[in-house]
């Protein structure tokens, strides 16, 4: 069995970021490999860039020898190239992509001129489909088979007898996701029809959860948040009336529209903060991967206990495992990393940190995998802090009062013992102490991975 995750557009990229964290935390089922693909015409999109960084970090350190009997890093990730796949190329307009100049005087060309405005046809698509799914659907349908290597790669796996679960994530209220979800699902279904018994396709349709106000009147084509609800209504009507291509469909949205702090048409400036809706969408992917391959079609609803508040009782997965991972990362960020920095710079002596002497003496602490783990730990802390500090939405998974503004640090280290809101005996001092106690691992656990495994184990209650 292999898992595929295909993110479509900017919202899909943010779901991919959450899924990457869940995967590293060991919240995906079994030990299957997760193949991650991204489809986004806006390749410089800041959201995608942040996700790519987390993914690339993990792909470097995922081979740490932490052993096979731990959830930590159990699901390996492969990135499907080209990553992201850009269906529009560079500086291309819709006219260029559908080769309008070949058809300008034909009946199809004239129909095309009626369906798309001059502005839609002439706008370069470097920043995506700008909230216009009609553009995206046309481009993706034309370019997917030739441009993306996805079908060929999945076909190779299923032709060898393996099964594949494919999960698509994107918004239904914007441009790229709304266009891509039904289009890509249909293309995959058609292309892989010979292997239908070995393939299952699921999707999370993300409903509106944020809003924005452009800084000034732009004379450009871009998404308008006031169109999100009409767009969503039209999309849901499509899904209810037409054939549903997904074996499992998840709808995730929010009744509170979180304001985006800085509006951007796209590109590197589009760097929106993480949101609990994206975490839920990633949990939907984990739920889909845990289902039997040919389970009956489902439409899932979940609800929360309190109207404007999320807490652990609303978390549809192993809260214990997630909290253990969060403790592991915060212990690393607050306790281990500062000590390692002092040791590397020569400001501290090794005897002060018995766990360093026992586990890390002789380990290259500036090796790429260790450095990438350091970056990743900071990225996870920042991601969690962003989820916790949403405007207009109270999230009490990790108490938001614990975080300093920037970087993502605990205000007071004593708060570590109540990271999930429940007071425990697991202080940073206790973690330090546990790290020095005797233990036994098998011989496959070694190097920096052995230390991380020990740290992870000490973070269990």
């Amino acid at each position: 069995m292999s898992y595929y995750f295909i993110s479509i557009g900017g919202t899909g990229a943010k779901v991919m970021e959450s899924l990457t964290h869940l995967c590293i935390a060991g919240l995906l089922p079994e030990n299957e490999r997760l193949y991650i693909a991204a489809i986004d015409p806006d390749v410089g999109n800041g959201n995608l860039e942040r996700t790519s960084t987390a993914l690339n970090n993990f792909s470097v350190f995922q081979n740490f020898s932490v052993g096979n009997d731990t959830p930590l890093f159990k699901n390996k990730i492969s990135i499907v190239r080209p990553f992201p796949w850009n269906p529009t190329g560079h500086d291309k307009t819709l006219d260029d992509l559908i080769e309008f100049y070949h058809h300008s005087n034909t009946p199809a060309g004239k129909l095309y001129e009626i369906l798309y405005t001059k502005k839609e046809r002439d706008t370069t698509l470097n920043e995506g489909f700008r909230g216009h799914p009609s553009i995206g659907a046309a481009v993706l349908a034309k370019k997917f088979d030739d441009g993306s290597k996805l079908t060929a790669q999945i076909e190779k796996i299923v032709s060898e007898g393996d099964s594949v679960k494919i999960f698509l994530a994107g918004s239904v209220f914007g441009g790229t996701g709304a266009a891509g979800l039904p289009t890509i699902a249909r293309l995959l279904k058609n292309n892989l029809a010979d292997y239908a018994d070995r393939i299952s396709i699921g999707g999370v349709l993300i409903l509106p959860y944020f809003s924005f106000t452009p800084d000034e009147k732009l004379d450009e084509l871009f998404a308008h948040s006031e169109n999100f609800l009409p767009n969503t209504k039209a999309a849901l009507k499509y899904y209810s009336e037409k054939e549903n291509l997904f074996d499992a469909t998840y709808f995730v949205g929010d009744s509170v529209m979180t304001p985006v702090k800085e509006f951007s048409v796209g590109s590197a400036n589009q760097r929106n903060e993480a949101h609990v809706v994206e975490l839920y969408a990633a949990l939907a992917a984990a739920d889909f991967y845990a289902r039997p391959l040919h389970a009956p079609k489902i439409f899932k609803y979940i609800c929360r206990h309190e109207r404007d508040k999320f807490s652990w009782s609303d978390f549809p997965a192993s809260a214990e495992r997630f909290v253990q991972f969060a403790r592991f990362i915060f212990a690393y960020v607050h306790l281990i990393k500062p000590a390692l920095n002092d040791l590397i710079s020569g400001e501290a002596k090794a005897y002060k940190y018995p766990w360093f002497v026992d586990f890390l003496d002789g380990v290259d602490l500036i090796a790429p995998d260790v450095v990438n783990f350091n970056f990743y730990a900071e990225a996870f802390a920042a991601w969690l802090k962003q989820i916790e500090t949403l405007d207009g939405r109270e999230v009490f998974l990790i108490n938001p009062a614990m975080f300093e503004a920037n970087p993502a640090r605990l205000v007071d280290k004593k708060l570590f013992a109540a990271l999930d809101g429940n007071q425990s005996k697991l202080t940073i001092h206790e973690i330090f102490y546990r790290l020095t106690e005797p233990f036994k691992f098998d011989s496959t656990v070694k190097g920096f991975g052995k230390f991380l495994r020990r740290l992870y184990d000490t973070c269990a209650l």
Partner: protein
Amino acid sequence: MNRTTRTVVKIFLIAAATVLCIAAAYYLGANVTGHKLATASDNMNYSRWLEKYFALTRAAGLLNGLCALGWFLTSRFFFTVDEASGAGKRIFWAALMAASLAISLGVAHFYAPLLGIKLNGIIFALFAIIFTGLGYWLLTIFTTPLAFKYTPPGARLILKRSGKVD
């Protein structure tokens, strides 16, 4: 072995080692140079000198044992290691070692005249080696709480040689 059991065992080990150090200092002092010092002391025969010398070794040994116990209890229950400044505590350990040495030599120097016995350099050397060397430095290597286990200098080498760590 859980943490509470380990704590109890280490306290017992400190107590037992202190008794052994007193016994070693008494036995070696009495046999190496006891006769000579008993003769040199005024109004003293060997058995009386032994009685006084035992009181001296017992006082020096018990006070040294308190240094080792003080290091253990402080580092086990009072130091926290959630900040870099809390880790290691070698200066505190060294201060207690200095106190141990001062006790070993000071008790011999000031208490022996009160007991009416004379001592020589061998006794001072024995007290320094047995009480401070073995009864503090070596003992703390084996009894220091795990969060500070490499604080006594040479701890890593000795623990490794003795198979206590990999």
